[in-house]
């Protein structure tokens, strides 16, 4: 789960990680008031969306005059901001963060991740601040310092000093930077984060460190014990259909093809999408109904997939382990009677209670295309798309 930059900076303040003075604003007028209250001789107006690459996309604007703050906010709020991480349609900007402009002497990168290779929290730092760290790591890996944290003892001071020295800091700066690393680690550990990034961490003209940008994402599996993080979830940043699907305990991701998919299990769901594509079709979505799917859950899955106007064929591929084919079949019959289904349905059932499931479908008089195997199901779906089989 992601939160906005202004929310991350509030969290940083709580952990005494230095951040610029700033105010969040929902309107151009509020942005102007924010700048007046902040004072100073220049301001930065930053679009608040859950996607990186805002700077290059025109989502971070500098203002020398108060009027400019209002103009920039006016321009950003209500616009669709397209960055390299948002996709073509971009993201709606609902709010901006107004901060005092800073006098920057040097920029660094500081981050924490859970490294999948060593399965531990790992501190990442670089003197190449303000740049895409993955690009830096790919082009010049020697410029990226990794320090692995032993979970038994946590991040140690000496590790922080070692990292600070490795990115070229010296004198007092080493202890100052080490303190920030330690605090960022505490925040990361306390809040069940998966990723924290300060890019750039800057040194200002008067020699102070500041987290100029701030980004964190959190473990969705840990939200049960992180209520104050869960409260900061911004549903406007998520696809409303994905939010609705998750409310029914369905895992749905919209794609741009025309074969709607309802599958159980994430691995089988991906493999099914891949098979459709190998037979010349394109999947309209990823949908995992999970284990123990009730007839109601299957009916909800139908509704969500069919709301997508691009769907021309609907394919079900269920390999029932803890699921039951009879419940799945009941769900299909219920969905078809409740909804207006105008596209061909391809059904492949296998596993627990298969015969009962097939009987329910046969007795219902439902029009559908039967498939025995995964290959069948994928091939018949693509044929049905072309109007070849029904």
């Amino acid at each position, binding site marked *: 789960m992601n939160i906005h930059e202004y929310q991350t900076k509030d969290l940083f303040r709580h952990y005494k990680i230095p951040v610029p003075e700033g105010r969040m604003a929902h309107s151009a007028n509020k942005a102007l008031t924010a700048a007046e209250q902040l004072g100073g001789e220049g301001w930065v107006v930053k679009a608040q969306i859950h996607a990186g690459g805002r700077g290059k996309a025109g989502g971070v604007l500098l203002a020398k005059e108060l009027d400019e703050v209002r103009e920039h906010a006016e321009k950003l709020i209500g616009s669709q901001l397209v960055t390299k991480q948002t996709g073509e349609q971009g993201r709606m900007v609902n709010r901006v963060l107004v901060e005092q402009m800073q006098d920057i002497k040097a920029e660094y990168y500081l981050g924490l991740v859970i490294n999948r290779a060593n399965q531990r929290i790992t501190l990442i730092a670089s003197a190449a601040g303000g740049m895409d760290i993955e690009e830096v790591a790919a082009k010049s890996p020697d410029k990226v310092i990794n320090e692995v944290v032993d979970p038994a003892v946590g991040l140690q001071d000496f590790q922080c000093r070692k990292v600070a020295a490795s990115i070229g800091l010296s004198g007092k700066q080493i202890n100052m930077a080490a303190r920030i690393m330690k605090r960022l680690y505490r925040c990361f550990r306390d809040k069940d984060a998966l990723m924290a990034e300060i890019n750039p961490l800057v040194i200002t003209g008067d020699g102070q460190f500041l987290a100029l940008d701030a980004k964190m994402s959190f473990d969705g599996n840990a939200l049960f014990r992180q209520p104050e993080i869960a409260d900061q979830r911004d549903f406007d940043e998520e696809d409303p259909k994905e939010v609705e699907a998750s409310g029914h305990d369905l895992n749905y991701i919209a794609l741009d093809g025309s074969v709607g998919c309802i599958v159980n*299990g994430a691995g089988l769901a991906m493999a099914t999408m891949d098979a459709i594509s190998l037979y010349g079709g*394109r*999947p309209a979505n990823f949908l995992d109904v999970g284990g123990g799917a009730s007839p109601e859950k299957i009916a909800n899955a139908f509704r969500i997939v069919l709301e997508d106007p691009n769907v021309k064929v609907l394919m079900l591929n269920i*390999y029932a*382990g803890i699921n039951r084919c009879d419940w799945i079949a009941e769900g299909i019959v219920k969905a078809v009677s409740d909804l207006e289904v105008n596209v061909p349905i391809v059904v492949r059932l296998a*596993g627990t209670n298969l015969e009962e499931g097939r009987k329910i479908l046969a007795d219902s008089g439902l029009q559908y295309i039967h498939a025995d195997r*995964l290959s069948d199901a994928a091939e018949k779906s693509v044929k049905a798309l072309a109007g070849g089989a029904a």
Partner: protein
Amino acid sequence: MSILVNKDSKVIFQGFTGQHATFHAQEAIRMGTQVVGGVTPGKGGQTHIERPVFDTVKDAVEQTGADVSVVFVPPAFTADAVMEAIDGGIKVIVVITDGVPVQDMVRVKRYLIGHDTIIVGPNTAGVITPEACKVGIMPAHIYVPGRIGVVSRSGTLNYEAVEQMSELGLGISTSISIGGDPVNGCDFLTLMKQFAEDDETDAVLMIGEIGGSQEVEAATWARDHMDKPLIGFIAGATAPPGRTMGHAGAIISGEDDTAQAKMKRLAELDVHVVQNAAEIGRTVQQSLEREECVA
């Protein structure tokens, strides 16, 4: 021999008296698994499905000689239950629970160091040695005994592959789903090493997915150390970058994470790569025939 579990394994269930644990313990017993009891703190001394309930894993191990545990406790308490099993001397811990916080697993993995225990999961369908021992939630009847070892992330894609193989008369020595989380109890490499040593396994099928580098690590080791055919599939060729595809670990974070890149690497490492999930069974069969010709 099979790997991890066999007919001599003595199995306990943690969270024994819960609904799901009860059902799957009964299914395991029906297949002939030696379920010797279970643990539910506070219910020690009771009897459940004709087997003793213990307050602690320590008690269960001392009184039953259990060496395998299946964990069904809720996510908030899973890490504690797994560490209790490690401390109690359990050798194979299968964690069915879905939704365990990642940092909990980071701590569990640290605690595991120095202990002779293998953790499978969390978020796994479990482990099965057909007609000998079932410690998981998979439908037992599709697993026919045979000589192919299977390791997968996904549960249902594992069932799919196993059915394709059984239609061709190919049975299973042991099948393991390691689960879809980014920090797993055990990885493909650990299991590959066990299959390489197993006299009853002639070939290994590895079913991976986008994200991480486990499949490539296991295949690299197998090329240098394993004298058995390795067949590989990677799910997620059509997955968009940056999205979590159901499994928390199934996410394309960089170019090396894509299905295409991983399949290319596997092919370079002499793995028999399956492009289409519908062809898994046939590819396993062909790779066996090819090896016989060479021999």
